[in-house]
């Protein structure tokens, strides 16, 4: 418990630093917030154009699809807001040797590297993503109970953990290869699949993207929870996947850390 409080205090200090920094560079915060908002709008626009020519995609109506895309973006904005900068810099710091500073800090290296910075623009835009989910739910006439909303956010949290784990594993490649530049692209490419309904996948695609890589489950699980109510197998699957992927990410990171030889790495 004392250790939890210790880590919470560290996180709070990082959050405070990020907030002060964001207020110092307000123009930067504004531009990045607009950038994120524009990307959300672009994704929504694509869905709207597709649905102006069809009524259903893989059995999903327009607002069901918007709810799915909103959920996927919500997960991604949380990841961007809480962890992206820290993990992204980790890859570069390992190469340059600046990762020494992370190792010298009073906490677990993965925690210290991941929580070093909060990105306010990502967190601000999570409100926009949540608004898309709420609007879609309203248009669909859904009236989820408070418990259902809580379960939805728990499943979103599992989704964030899975995204986080995938990103940590991708950036941990920096311990083995000389340049991890562009590796983050693999994360974004994989996450494109999370905007697609589970029913659109068949045969080999289903095995790879639904069962082996849980990129489809992360968004479909929470979205289905709002649309069809609590489905224990989806919830359990998502929870187990989050645990498994997190354990794997920690193992990969630690294995890489053993190879780290400071500035000469």
């Amino acid at each position: 418990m004392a250790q939890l409080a210790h880590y919470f205090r560290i996180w709070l200090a990082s959050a405070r630093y990020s907030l002060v920094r964001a207020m110092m560079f307000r123009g930067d915060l504004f531009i990045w917030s607009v950038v994120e908002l524009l990307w959300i709008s672009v994704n929504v626009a694509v869905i709207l154009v597709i649905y102006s020519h069809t009524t259903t995609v893989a059995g999903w109506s327009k607002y069901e699809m918007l709810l799915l895309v909103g959920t996927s973006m919500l997960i991604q904005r949380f990841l961007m807001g809480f962890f992206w900068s820290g993990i992204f810099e980790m890859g570069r710091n390992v190469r340059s040797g600046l990762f020494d500073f992370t190792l010298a800090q009073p906490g677990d290296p993965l925690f210290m590297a991941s929580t070093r910075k909060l990105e306010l623009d990502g967190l601000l835009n999570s409100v926009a993503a949540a608004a898309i989910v709420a609007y879609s739910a309203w248009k669909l006439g859904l009236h989820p109970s408070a418990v259902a909303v809580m379960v939805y956010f728990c499943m979103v949290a599992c989704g964030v953990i899975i995204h986080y784990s995938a990103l940590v594993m991708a950036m941990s490649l920096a311990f083995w290869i000389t340049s991890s530049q562009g590796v983050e692209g693999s994360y974004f490419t994989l996450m494109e699949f999370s905007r697609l309904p589970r029913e659109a996948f068949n045969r080999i695609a289903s095995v790879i993207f639904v069962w082996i890589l849980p990129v489809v489950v992360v968004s479909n699980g929470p979205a289905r929870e709002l649309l069809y109510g609590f489905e224990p197998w989806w919830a359990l699957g998502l929870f187990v996947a989050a645990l498994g992927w997190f354990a794997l990410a920690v193992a990969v990171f630690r294995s890489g850390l053993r190879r780290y030889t400071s500035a000469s790495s």
Partner: protein
Amino acid sequence: MTKYAQSFIVGLQSNLVYRWNFGVRSLFWFFHLVVVFILWGAAFASNSRIGGFSFSQTLTYFVVIFVLQFFIGAFNEDYQISEDIRNGLINQFLLKPINYFAYRLSVFAAARVVSGAFGFLALLVALPFFRHYLELPHEAWRYVLAVPAMALTAIIQFSIAYFFGLLAFWFLDIQGFVILSMAIENLLGGQMLPLDLLPHAAFNFVRFLPFFYQAYFPASIITGRQGFDFAVQGLAIQAFWAFALVCLAEFVWRRGLRHHTAAGG
């Protein structure tokens, strides 16, 4: 002219150093195509035609778009130019009888030869999976007009990247602007969906914007989405935008130099 030929050769050599980055990018391209295949496959499951085109024609459009991106799309030229300015490397060009725009254009051409070769290889690998879905028209005029359209597209793509790179004369970090423009270009350039699926009024508006000519226009000629008259009119508008953007780039370069302080370097 010889000096730019030399820049081209040096550009080829330096881009070959990053062959793995292009290889990885090609792999992402393949996954992106899988996303397109699944999404549009699901949309076409309940419609034999969308916007007057079949699934094969739509998939062919996306394949052509992706191939064009590898051959004539600007990747990170804006970043390279901004780094030249930020690090003071630009100073050496100011002291030599070399036109920076022409120098960068020759390096851009070299980079596209390398990335185009990797894109072509990726296409060869993907071809067995998509071969049965590719459907190209047979009219010879399309391929004749596609050549100048692609050349002008390359100039427009490069000029826009050059323009954003030059913003480093005024701003420390241009990444926000670059990603902002990327979102607009992806949607209005037709990389996320064929622009002819937009509502009629929106389509008639975007066809007068330069983004329209960054990818959609040459792809629409090659894949038969537009007729002869539209292609000829489009070429005239595209030529205007290419000229205007080159002039804008020159103007911004001159203004930027007035703002530039060549300390150190």
